C-alpha cells in the first residue's frame, strides 16, 4: 500500500511538472483567448478582449518585439523599454468605505488641531479668579457724528420745533443724514489693527533709525570711515580734474591749486589741538595730575605730527631724503598721515614735478633769487625755541596769516622782517602761556630732541617749499600762456599717465583692504600686541618721568612712594585677614543657632556615631515619659473635673448674728444648705481604660459640623484653615474683604455676551514674536 501510495504521489508530481512545462513552452502559442488588438473605438467592451491578470505587459511589448534589432527601430524599442521600466502602474483605488474612513480620520485630526488652539484660553478662563462678561469688548468703536450727537431719550419739543423750522428752510440736512446713514461704519478686527499698528511702528522705527544714522554719521570719528570717504571724494575730484584738463588746462591748474589749498586747510583743522572738551578738562587737571599732563602732551604731539606738511619722497634733493628719514619713518607708523595724504600728495607732487622739469631750464635764475630772499625767515624760524607746543602755535599762526595776506596762504614765509619779529614775539608769549599752563610736562630730553628735529625740519621745509614755489608758481604767473602753448600736449599725456597710475592704486586699495579684512584677526592681535607695547612704553616713560622729577624735587618722590606703600600694605592686610578669619570662625566658634551640635560636627566617618547618638537621645526621651501613665493621669483629671460638685447655697451671715466673733458657717446651716451629690455617677468610659469619652459634648452643634472632608480639599488642616480664615469686613481689612468676596462671574444686565472669537487667539506676545521672526527690521551696518 505504501508503495502504491508513493507511486501515486510520484505520478501526481510528474503530472504537474509536465503540465507546467507544457504551459511554459506552449503557453503563448496555445492561448485560447487572444490578446486585444487595436480596433475601431466602440462603447462595447467585450470580455474576451480583456487582458488576463498575469499578462499585463500586453500590447506595447509585443509591438516592440516586432521591431528590428538594428537601425531606427532599435532606438525606439530601447526607449520603450526604458519607459516601461520607469513607469509603474498606479495602485488600485481603495474601496469606498475604507477611503471614506481615512478621509474622516484626517478631517477629524485637522478639526482636533483646530480645537486645540483654544485650550490655553479655556483653561485660563476656568482658573481665573473673576471673569467679567462680555469678554471681547471691542477696544475701540467708531461712531458716526449722528450717532454721537443723537439723544437716546428722543428729542425735546423745542428741538423738534427748531428742526421743523430748519427743515422748512432747507432740505439739505436730510440729504446729509442720508449720506451718513448710507455709509457703513468700518470695523477692523483686532488682528488687522495690530498689524496696522505694527506696520506703523516699523515705519517709525525705520525713520528714527535713518535719523540716528545720519546724526551718527555726522559725528563719526573713525579714521577708516573718513579715509574711505576721502578716497571717494578724491576719486571724484580726480575725475573732474581729468576732464577739466582735457577741456581747459588753465582751469585745471587753478583747480590743482585749489586742491592744494584745501589740503592745507585740512592740515590746519583743530584736530588734536587740545581745544576740545576733553583737552580742556585735562588742562584743568594738569596742574595736579601728572598723567593728564602726559596725555595732553601726547595729544599735542600727535596733532603736531598730523598737521605736518607731508614730505615728498621723490623730491630732487638727496640730502632731504636722508634727513627726513626719521620723520618719514614716523609717518609710516602713523596711519593717518600715511594713507590720508598719499594719493593727493603723489598726484600733486607728480604734477608739480612735471611742471618743475619743464620749467627748470627757464627759471633757474629766478629760483636762486627767491632762495636768497627766503633764507632770512628760515633763520628766524629756526631760531625760536619751540617744543610741541610751539608747533601747534605755528599752525595757528599760519592760519591767521592766511586771512591777513594772500602771499602767506601757501607757505607763510615770504614776509617782511618786522612782521616776522612780531610773530616771534607773539609766538614766544604764546609758548610761555602754554608752558605755564601745563607746567612743562615734556621731558627735557624729548624737548631737546624735538627742538632739534623742528629746527631741521624748518630748514628743510623752507628749502623745499621755496624750491618748489620758485620752480612752479612764479613762472606761471609770468609766462603761462607761452608755456601752455608749448607744453599742452606733453602735459596732457603725462598727467593722464599719472592719473591712470593713481586710479590703479585706488582701485587696488579696496582689494588690499579686503585682504586685510580676511586676515583681520591676525591684524587685531598684532594691533593689540602693539598697543600693549605702547602701553608698556608709556608706562616706562611714566616711570622715567617720575624718577626724573624725583631728581628735580625732593618732595615729590615721597608723595609718589606713599600711595604705592599704601597699596602694598593694603594687599598685605587682605591676604592676611580673609582666609584666617574664615578658618577660625568655621573651626572654633560655635554658631548660636538651634541646630544641634551633633549635626554640626558631622564628618563622613562620624556619621554613624552621630545617628547612633540621635537614636539614643530619642530613646531617652521616650524612656522618661510613660505615655500610658500620662494618659491615665489625663483621664483621671478629666473625670475629676467632670464629677458633680456639691451645691453650696449657704449665704454668709444669713440667719445669724452679725458682728465680731460670729462663727463662720454653722453646722446646721451646712447641713441644711449644702446639697450633696452622690459621689459615683457611672461614666461611659468607666470600663474603657484607653478611651476618654466627653459626655459634655454639644449635641446640638453636631448637626452643624462637617462629617466628611469635602472633595477639593486634600487634608483636614487645609479645610479647617479655609473655614477658620474670616472673610467679613468685621475681622479683616476692607480691601482684603473685597478681594475675598469677589464674585467669580460678573455680567452686565442687557449686554449681549457673544461667543469667543478668533481675536481671543491673538496673543500679543505671540504677535511680537512673530514680528521678530518674520519681518525683523535689520538695520544696515554703519
Amino acid at each position, binding site marked *: 500500500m505504501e508503495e502504491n501510495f508513493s507511486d501515486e504521489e510520484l505520478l501526481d508530481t510528474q503530472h504537474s511538472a509536465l503540465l507546467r512545462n507544457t504551459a511554459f513552452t506552449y503557453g503563448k502559442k496555445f492561448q485560447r483567448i487572444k490578446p486585444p488588438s487595436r480596433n475601431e473605438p466602440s462603447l462595447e467592451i467585450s470580455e474576451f478582449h480583456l487582458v488576463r491578470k498575469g499578462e499585463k505587459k500586453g500590447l506595447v511589448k509585443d509591438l516592440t518585439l516586432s521591431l528590428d534589432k538594428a537601425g531606427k527601430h532599435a532606438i525606439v524599442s530601447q526607449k520603450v523599454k526604458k519607459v516601461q521600466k520607469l513607469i509603474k502602474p498606479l495602485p488600485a483605488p481603495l474601496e469606498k468605505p475604507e477611503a471614506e474612513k481615512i478621509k474622516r480620520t484626517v478631517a477629524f485630526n485637522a478639526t482636533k488641531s483646530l480645537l486645540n488652539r483654544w485650550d490655553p484660553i479655556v483653561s485660563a478662563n476656568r482658573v481665573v479668579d473673576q471673569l467679567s462678561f462680555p469678554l471681547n469688548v471691542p477696544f475701540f468703536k467708531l461712531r458716526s457724528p449722528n450717532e454721537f450727537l443723537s439723544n437716546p431719550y428722543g428729542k425735546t419739543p423745542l428741538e423738534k420745533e427748531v428742526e421743523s423750522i430748519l427743515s422748512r428752510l432747507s432740505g439739505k440736512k436730510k440729504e446729509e443724514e442720508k449720506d451718513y446713514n448710507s455709509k457703513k461704519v468700518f470695523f477692523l478686527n483686532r488682528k488687522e489693527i495690530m498689524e496696522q499698528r505694527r506696520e506703523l511702528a516699523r515705519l517709525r522705527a525705520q525713520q528714527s533709525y535713518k535719523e540716528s544714522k545720519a546724526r551718527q554719521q555726522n559725528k563719526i570719528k573713525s579714521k577708516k570711515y573718513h579715509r574711505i570717504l576721502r578716497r571717494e571724494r578724491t576719486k571724484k575730484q580726480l575725475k573732474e580734474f581729468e576732464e577739466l584738463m582735457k577741456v581747459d588746462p588753465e582751469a585745471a591748474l587753478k583747480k590743482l591749486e585749489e586742491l592744494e589749498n584745501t589740503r592745507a586747510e585740512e592740515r590746519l583743522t583743530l584736530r588734536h589741538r587740545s581745544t576740545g572738551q576733553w583737552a580742556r578738562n585735562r588742562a584743568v587737571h594738569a596742574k595736579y595730575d601728572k598723567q593728564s599732563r602726559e596725555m595732553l602732551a601726547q595729544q599735542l604731539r600727535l596733532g603736531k605730527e598730523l598737521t605736518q606738511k607731508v614730505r615728498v619722497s621723490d623730491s630732487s634733493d638727496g640730502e632731504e631724503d636722508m634727513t627726513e628719514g626719521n620723520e618719514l619713518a614716523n609717518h609710516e607708523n602713523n596711519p593717518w598721515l600715511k594713507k590720508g595724504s598719499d594719493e593727493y600728495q603723489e598726484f600733486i607732487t607728480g604734477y608739480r614735478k612735471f611742471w618743475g622739469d619743464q620749467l627748470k631750464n627757464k627759471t633757474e635764475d629766478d629760483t636762486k633769487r627767491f632762495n636768497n630772499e627766503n633764507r632770512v625767515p628760515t633763520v628766524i624760524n629756526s631760531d625760536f625755541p619751540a617744543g610741541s607746543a610751539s608747533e601747534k602755535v605755528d599752525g595757528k599762526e599760519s592760519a591767521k596769516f592766511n586771512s591777513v595776506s594772500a602771499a602767506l596762504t601757501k607757505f607763510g614765509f615770504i614776509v617782511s622782517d618786522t612782521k616776522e619779529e612780531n610773530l616771534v614775539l607773539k609766538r614766544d608769549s604764546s609758548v610761555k602761556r602754554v608752558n605755564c599752563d601745563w607746567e612743562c610736562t615734556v621731558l627735557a630730553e624729548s624737548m631737546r630732541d624735538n627742538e632739534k628735529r623742528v629746527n631741521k625740519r624748518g630748514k628743510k621745509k623752507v628749502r623745499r617749499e621755496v624750491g618748489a614755489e620758485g620752480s612752479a608758481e612764479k613762472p606761471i604767473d609770468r609766462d603761462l600762456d607761452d608755456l601752455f602753448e608749448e607744453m599742452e600736449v606733453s602735459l596732457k599725456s603725462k598727467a593722464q599717465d599719472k592719473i591712470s597710475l593713481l586710479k590703479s592704486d585706488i582701485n587696488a586699495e579696496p582689494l588690499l583692504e579686503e585682504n586685510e579684512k580676511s586676515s583681520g584677526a591676525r591684524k587685531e592681535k598684532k594691533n593689540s600686541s602693539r598697543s600693549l607695547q605702547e602701553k608698556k612704553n608709556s608706562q616706562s616713560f611714566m616711570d622715567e618721568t617720575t624718577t626724573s622729577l624725583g631728581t628735580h624735587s625732593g618732595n615729590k618722590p615721597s608723595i609718589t612712594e606713599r600711595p604705592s606703600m599704601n597699596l602694598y600694605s593694603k594687599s598685605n592686610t587682605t591676604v592676611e585677614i580673609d582666609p584666617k578669619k574664615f578658618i577660625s570662625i568655621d573651626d572654633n566658634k560655635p554658631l548660636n543657632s538651634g541646630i544641634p551640635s551633633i549635626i554640626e560636627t558631622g564628618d563622613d566617618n562620624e556619621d554613624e556615631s552621630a545617628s547612633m547618638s540621635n537614636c539614643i537621645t530619642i530613646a531617652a526621651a521616650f524612656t522618661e515619659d510613660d505615655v500610658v501613665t500620662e494618659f491615665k493621669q489625663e483621664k483621671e483629671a478629666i473625670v475629676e473635673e467632670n464629677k458633680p460638685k456639691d451645691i453650696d447655697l449657704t449665704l454668709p451671715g444669713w440667719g445669724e448674728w452679725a458682728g465680731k466673733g460670729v462663727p463662720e458657717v454653722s453646722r446646721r446651716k451646712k447641713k441644711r444648705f449644702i446639697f450633696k451629690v452622690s459621689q459615683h455617677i457611672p461614666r461611659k468610659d468607666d470600663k474603657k481604660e484607653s478611651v476618654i469619652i466627653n459626655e459634655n459634648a454639644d449635641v446640638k452643634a453636631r448637626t452643624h459640623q462637617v462629617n466628611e472632608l469635602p472633595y477639593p480639599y486634600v487634608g483636614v488642616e487645609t479645610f479647617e484653615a479655609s473655614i477658620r480664615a*474670616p472673610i467679613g469686613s*468685621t475681622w479683616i481689612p476692607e480691601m482684603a474683604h473685597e478681594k475675598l468676596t469677589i464674585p467669580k462671574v460678573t455680567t452686565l444686565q442687557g449686554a449681549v455676551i457673544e461667543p469667543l472669537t478668533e481675536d481671543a487667539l491673538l496673543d500679543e506676545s505671540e504677535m511680537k514674536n512673530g514680528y521678530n521672526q518674520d519681518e525683523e527690521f535689520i538695520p544696515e551696518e554703519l
Partner: protein
Amino acid sequence: MKVKVISRNPDEYLRATKRDIYKVPRNFDPVLHPFEGPREYTRALNAVKLERIFAKPFVGNLDGHREGVCSLAKHPKRVSILVSGAYDGEVRVWDIARRVSTASWQAHNGWVRGICFSPTEEGDCFWTVGDDATIKVWNTSPKDEMNNDVRPLNTIISKSVLTSVSHQWGGKLYATSGDCCQVWDETRDEPLQSHSWGVDSLYSVSFNPVQTNVLGACASDRSMIFYDVRMSGPIRKVIMQLRSNKIAWNPMEPFVFTCASEDYNLYSFDARSLGQPFNVHMDHTSAVTDVDYSPTGKEFISGSYDKTVRFFELDKGHSRDVYHTKRMQRLTCVAWSLDAKFVATASDEMNIRIWKARAAEKLGNLKPREKRALEYAAALREKFAFHPQIKRIARHRQVPKHIYNAQKEMRAIKDKMSRK
C-alpha cells in the same frame, strides 16, 4: 455760675456728606474675636436662608400662541427680542421687556420645526423650517402693522423633510437636518453640501458658535454625527445608548458640547476625545428634550419631558436648581438669554415662560453697599457650602409629587444597581 456740660465736636460724630462711611475703629487681632467663626457661620446660615426666601425665579409669561410652542430663537444682538414657532405653523416675534408679541404670522403649514437667526450684521432676518419642507427667510420687524400678509424674504422648497436649522456665527452658511445634513449658503437656493452617513434621519443640527466650521447633529440611530463644513464631510460619529435630542455647544469653550439624551441624562463631551463624556449630568426624571448654554459657558439649562427646567453647572453632576410650575407642561425648548440673566422656556401648553437665571438674584441697579453685602453673602454661602445645614437648606427644593416620586424610584433603582 459756671455750668459744666458735656460737649462734643459734631465733626467727630457727624458725616461730612451722606456718602461718607463711618470710620469704625477696629482691632483685627483674632484673640479679641473669639467668636468670629461661629458669627460668620451664622451669617452664612442666614444668607442661605434668605437666598431661599428670595428665590422667586418666575418673571413672566408670554401668552399668545394657539398651539404648543415647538421652537424658540433668541436675537443675536438684542436681548429683548425672541422668536417662537408653534405646532400650527405660527411664528411670533416677542418683545420680552414689554411681554408682548410684536408680530405674528402663519409661516408654515404644520410644525415650525426650527428657527434660527443670522448672527451676522444686525440680526435683521431669521430662518424657519417647517413640516411643509420649506425654508423661509423672514424679516424680524415686518413692516405691515396688521400682520395680515407678511411675506417671507425668501422661500426655498426642500426636496426632503426638514427637522431643524442652525446658522453659522460670523458666516454666510446655515445647515438644516432632515434626511441628510445640508449646508446652505444665504445667497443660494441650492444646498452647497449634502452629507449622509448611513442614517435615516437627523433630528437636530447645531453649529459650533466659536469654531464655526464644526457642526454637530443628532441622528435617529442613537448617534451624534459631527461635520466639518470646510472639509466637506462628516468627521466622526458617536453612538449613545439612547437617542440624543439636542446638541448645545459651549460658547466659551469651543471643544465642549452637551447633549440632551433620552435616558434622562445630559452628557458633556470634549469634542477632541469622544470616547466618553467627561461629565454626566443627572437629575431629570424623564427624557431631556432641549439644552442651551449660558453665554458665560459656565452652566447650561435643560428642559425635560418631566415638566421641569433644570440648571446644571458644567463641572457638576447634579443640577443647581430646578424650575417648575403647576401649569407648565412638557418642555419643548429652552433658551438662555444672551445677557445671561434670563431664560425662556417653551412648553406644550402654548406658553413661553421667562425666568431669572439665578432664582434669588435681585434685578435692577444695586446700591454699592447692597451689592457688596450680596457679594459677601454669596461668598459666605460658598465658603460654608460643605456644612450640612447650609448644604441642606441650599439644596432644598419643593418639587411636584410626580417628580419627587420619580426621583425616589430612580434612587431606588440606582441603589439596587450599586448593590448588585
